[in-house]
């Protein structure tokens, strides 16, 4: 554990406490665990399938076997959707927590998921049968509207938004956007469809959605890694970042765009799953230190793992009527949020 400070930071004469060795271990171990849990996820479900059948379905596909079709058309897209959205929610949380220096930042708590949700309600009600591409683009717009409302409020606060105020602003914006979604849902009688969708689940994910969404998510994840050094510097404080020659306005804008696309794309596929972006970056930071060049990739891997494993749990818990993923993750997320809130340090 030689390298306590990274080369870039050393150049800037700032010591950043990070553990690259631990980070490498987490990345490699996490990816291995992800592969194992993906295999498990493909095998378990309403109909259990053996690993050898999975292997055959992948490499000796036989279109006449139902089990092969189930694997190819249902189980594999489902695992991919879980992995992609898990990485996306977690990375978006990590970016926000780093940029805003706010330990409570999460796309669910800050109303971004509700923003994407309100646009989905509008699409369901007024443009039924809309293509998935447009659905996803609309949900970016909704997410952006929520961000503008929450952070726009911050612009009017002297001294900026403290973490607690940001969460309160997020709660109010969520309440507003959910009320609008409810009004649309009640008026146009789409309440049940929308509720099923927003509850979070990957039952209905198909290859087309994966194909459309994955370039956005993967592109933004790469963007997040490229931006990670600047995010680390921002996380040290705006003054330091400016002092080191960072164009903080530009970085924040790009970072927010990444957050919007990551969260918006995920909500349009699996619904409003909260708390992934809250929990995972904290765990990653605890394990690998405060360098976002490690936090962001580790968050992405751990986030994927969380959703894939939770999805297995959702199916095992009650295989015939699936437990909504969002509820299952809230089961872990709420106590974690409480724990963070309880620590109640002054800066909160």
């Amino acid at each position: 554990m030689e390298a306590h400070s990274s080369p870039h930071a050393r150049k800037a004469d700032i010591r950043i406490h990070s553990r690259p060795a631990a980070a490498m271990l987490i990345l490699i171990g996490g990816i291995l665990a992800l592969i194992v849990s993906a295999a498990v996820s493909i095998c378990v479900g309403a109909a259990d399938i053996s690993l050898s059948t999975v292997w055959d379905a992948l490499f000796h596909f036989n279109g006449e076997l139902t089990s092969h079709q189930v694997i190819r058309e249902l189980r594999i897209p489902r695992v991919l959707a879980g992995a992609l959205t898990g990485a996306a929610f977690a990375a978006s949380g990590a970016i926000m927590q780093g940029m805003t220096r706010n330990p409570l930042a999460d796309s669910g708590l800050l109303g971004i998921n509700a923003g994407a949700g309100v646009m989905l309600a509008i699409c369901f009600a007024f443009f039924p049968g809309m293509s998935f591409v447009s659905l996803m683009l609309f949900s970016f717009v909704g997410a952006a509207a929520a961000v503008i409302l929450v952070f726009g409020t911050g612009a009017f606060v002297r001294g900026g938004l403290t973490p607690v105020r940001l969460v309160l602003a997020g709660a109010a914006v969520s309440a507003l956007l959910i009320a609008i979604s409810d009004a649309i849902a009640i008026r146009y009688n789409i309440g049940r469809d929308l509720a099923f969708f927003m509850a979070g689940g990957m039952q209905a994910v198909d290859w087309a959605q994966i194909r459309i969404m994955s370039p956005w998510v993967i592109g933004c994840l790469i963007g997040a890694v490229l931006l990670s050094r600047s995010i680390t510097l921002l996380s040290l404080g705006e003054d330091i970042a400016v002092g080191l020659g960072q164009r903080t306005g530009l970085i924040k804008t790009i970072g927010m765009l990444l957050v919007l696309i990551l969260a918006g794309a995920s909500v349009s596929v699996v619904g409003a799953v909260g708390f992934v972006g809250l929990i995972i970056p904290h765990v990653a930071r605890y394990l690998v230190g405060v360098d976002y060049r490690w936090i962001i990739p580790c968050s992405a891997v751990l986030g994927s793992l969380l959703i894939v494993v939770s999805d297995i749990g959702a199916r095992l818990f009650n295989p015939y009527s699936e437990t909504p993923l969002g509820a299952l993750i809230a089961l872990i997320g709420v106590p974690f949020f409480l724990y963070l809130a309880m620590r109640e340090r002054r800066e909160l």
Partner: protein
Amino acid sequence: MASLHPVTPAEAARKRRAYKVIAVLGALIAAVFIISMNTGTLRLSPSEMLHTIIGSGTDKQELILYQFRLPRIVMSVLIGAGFAVSGCILQGVTRNALADPGILGINAGAGLIVILYISVMPLDKSIFMLPFMSLVGAGATAALIYALSYRRHHGISTIRLLLVGIAVAAGISAAMIVLTLKLNPDQFKFVQTWLAGSLLGTDWRFVSALLPWIAVLLPFVFVKSRVLDILNLGDHTAAGLGAALNRERLYLYGAAIGLAGSCVAVGGGIAFVGLIGPHLARRLVGPNHAYLLPASAMTGALLLIVSDSLARMYDIPTGIIVAIIGAPYFLYLLTRTK
């Protein structure tokens, strides 16, 4: 310390102003009450309404006015007053300008119990038990939030109270989602409309279920207005004045929960009234609770009666209108408070 010496000239001026404000608010409520009787899908012209009131209307007109419209309007007045006074107490006791039963998760707790109840009982029979169940849910949630935010030697920190409230509300919402997805379409529609704060099903039975709570708790709180003034000065000052702080605080919390719980029970999850009512009132009559509490009750009633008339015009639940007005106001307050 002007509020503790009610004989100063400044205080006398404030008193006159407060009476004026209360009189104006009363007149406004009466005006909106009358206008509101006249709005809705089935319109009654003012003359038809007058005839109906003096007893010479047709059976249909009487049915509309007495069985559908009047209970709903009376109900919105009561609920608005109840929520606003509940919010006013919470803001006074916690000394936090952003406290509101909706934000603190009390509404969500009531909602959870209602869904549980509906999912096991047949819909048509469960309506009468709903208020009691929801009161139990509200009380249990409030106790949970209080217990989670209480720390020995420190008591209740308002920041923690708000954060715990948000967390508990998130947890309860997750549980509610699981339950609502198991409901059949009829039950789902009922729960969704009810949770959104709809006064659609209101009839006189609901009014008589709510009235005793309001009739007992509002006077009780008004009697305690001086205690709220003292609590508002801060713990150290208040302890120096010899108030039996914790006991008084607990009574007031109890009253706030009783009001919020009974209002949620009959009106559904209407948030933000408890936030806006007291704030507008404070602007109008100042921080003295002797005037602030009645003024809050009236601004809350006015807000809800206006929202409900709009809701009837556009045929969507009242709580949604209140949220559309309330959330921006909350954000505005957030930029202003310390």
